[in-house]
């Protein structure tokens, strides 16, 4: 009897254990969660806490950010991340580069997501400027800063300045000085953006990122096409078209290009070509 008793007890407890697991898991999921916070410990404190493992800590902070961001890809709602979540994402990337300012990946990811969806081009530039200072052999960082000044902040002079900085660094494409000159002389904005994007696509290995840029490129090409058509219409008929369809009826263009973001192109009161999707 003594020898069988432990076995009987185990056989009794096992199924109870299995059934309890699911109850406990459900309960934990239903526990009220605290308010989401964007707070990340400031880099000087993290540096102290990381002792001699700064590099590794920076890697893990970055991965933490990346994994979180990846987990939001399932979400259907737009915008995909809440305000405080974008802040947290920025803080994490800032912390990671605070521990290792030479680490390229956080800058790369910041440029890819914080600018377009996250709507934080100025903060991204602050981050990238730190990277550009340390990675002084890297032309892509000042290039990104320049792009952000041009595309998001409409600061062409600053953009040109950073492009010239980039052009001095090893491996910079030869078109940078030309592009800087174009910006200084306020040539067509959409054209400039297309040139920028084509360069960025060339430099991207990440398929998902490439697709994102290409989608935007197609949208911009569509806008450029319509801008040029509008100029032709203006030339021919002395005034701007009221609606884009006018250009089809007047035989300036055959069809209106499709917006890859699912919206519809239209011409605004001030004559600029916009789209209902706002390129999102």
């Amino acid at each position, binding site marked *: 009897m003594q020898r069988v008793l432990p076995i009987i007890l185990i056989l009794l407890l096992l199924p109870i254990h299995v059934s309890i697991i699911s109850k406990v898991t459900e309960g934990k999921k239903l526990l009220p969660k605290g308010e989401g916070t964007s707070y990340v410990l*400031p880099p*000087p*404190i993290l*540096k*102290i*806490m990381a*002792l*001699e*493992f*700064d*590099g*590794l800590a*920076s*890697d893990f902070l*970055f*991965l933490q950010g*990346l994994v979180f961001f990846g987990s939001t890809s399932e979400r259907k709602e737009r915008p995909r991340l809440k305000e405080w979540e974008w802040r947290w994402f920025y803080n994490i990337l800032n912390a990671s580069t605070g521990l*290792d300012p*030479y*680490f*390229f*990946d956080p800058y*790369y*990811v910041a440029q890819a997501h914080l600018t377009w969806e996250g709507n934080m081009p100025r903060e991204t530039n602050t981050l990238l400027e730190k990277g550009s200072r340390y990675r002084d*052999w890297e032309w892509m960082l000042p290039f990104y800063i320049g792009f952000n000044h041009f595309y998001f902040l409409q600061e062409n002079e600053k953009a040109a300045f950073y492009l010239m900085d980039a052009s001095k660094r090893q491996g910079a494409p030869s078109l940078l000085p030309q592009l800087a000159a174009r910006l200084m002389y306020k040539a067509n904005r959409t054209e400039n953006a297309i040139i920028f994007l084509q360069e960025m696509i060339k430099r991207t290995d*990440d398929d998902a990122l490439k697709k994102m840029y290409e989608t935007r490129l197609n949208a911009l090409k569509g806008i450029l096409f319509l801008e040029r058509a509008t100029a032709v219409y203006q030339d021919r008929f002395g005034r701007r078209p009221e609606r884009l369809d006018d250009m089809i009826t007047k035989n300036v263009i055959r069809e209106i290009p499709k917006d890859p973001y699912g919206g519809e192109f239209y011409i605004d009161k001030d004559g600029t070509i916009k789209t209902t999707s706002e390129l999102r």
Partner: protein
Amino acid sequence: MTAIWAIAVITFKEGIRNRAIYGISIFALLLLGANLLISSMIMQEVGKVAVDMALSTVSFAGLLLVLFVGINLMAKDLDKKTIYMVLSRPISRPQYILGKFFGMALLILATISILSIFAIISIFMVKLSYPGYFSRFSWPPILLAISFITISLILLSALTFLFASFSSTSFITLILTIVSYIIGQSIMDVKALVEAPQAVGIQVSPVTVKVVQAAYYIFPNLSIFDIKLQAAHGLPISLSYIFWAVSYGAVYTCLTIILASIIFRRREFP
């Protein structure tokens, strides 16, 4: 001299045959295996992360070696009275301390060498898997980083001797060594923080600043031997930096061991 060498030899043998070495090695191998996994999650700078992981593993395993095997080597003598077998020979207390310290240094050297071979293999395997993502990769800074890790550990183990020379139990020695390690690694960052606290938006009293500055001189600045970041990015280290860092390590270690042997001279073993 032969007496010091004899003590060093048995200290080394006792250490290298300690079961804990197996545990530490297996742990290190697991981490190095994980290197491949972690590196694959990185998008661009795979090389940097691979080197971070490999060097951090070597450093951490070395730390475990000093804390558990190293302290055990001294503690065994003092707690379990194996010291009688050594002190009953015609040797002086300073000879004893020197002999044990050299044995410990040899143990660290041997263990780190073996661990680094595995670390290098680990980096190599990641490099083979993702050859395009290893820009700015260079072996010499990595080897230099490993050498610096070794110096740092030898310095730390000298401190364990100092603490063991007056502590009554090995537990106290362990705590003091851990505290010294933490202070040693962070003192430079803490000093930077208290001298410019506005970066974090806190207030620091002048007394705190003075205390930290004093601690900076007393405790070893272990972070100067941490060049893992530079190794990970292939950044160059100047010869003069190497010279001063090694000199600092040598001087501090000598001071510590001399102090330890002075204290140990007067210790009794009832």
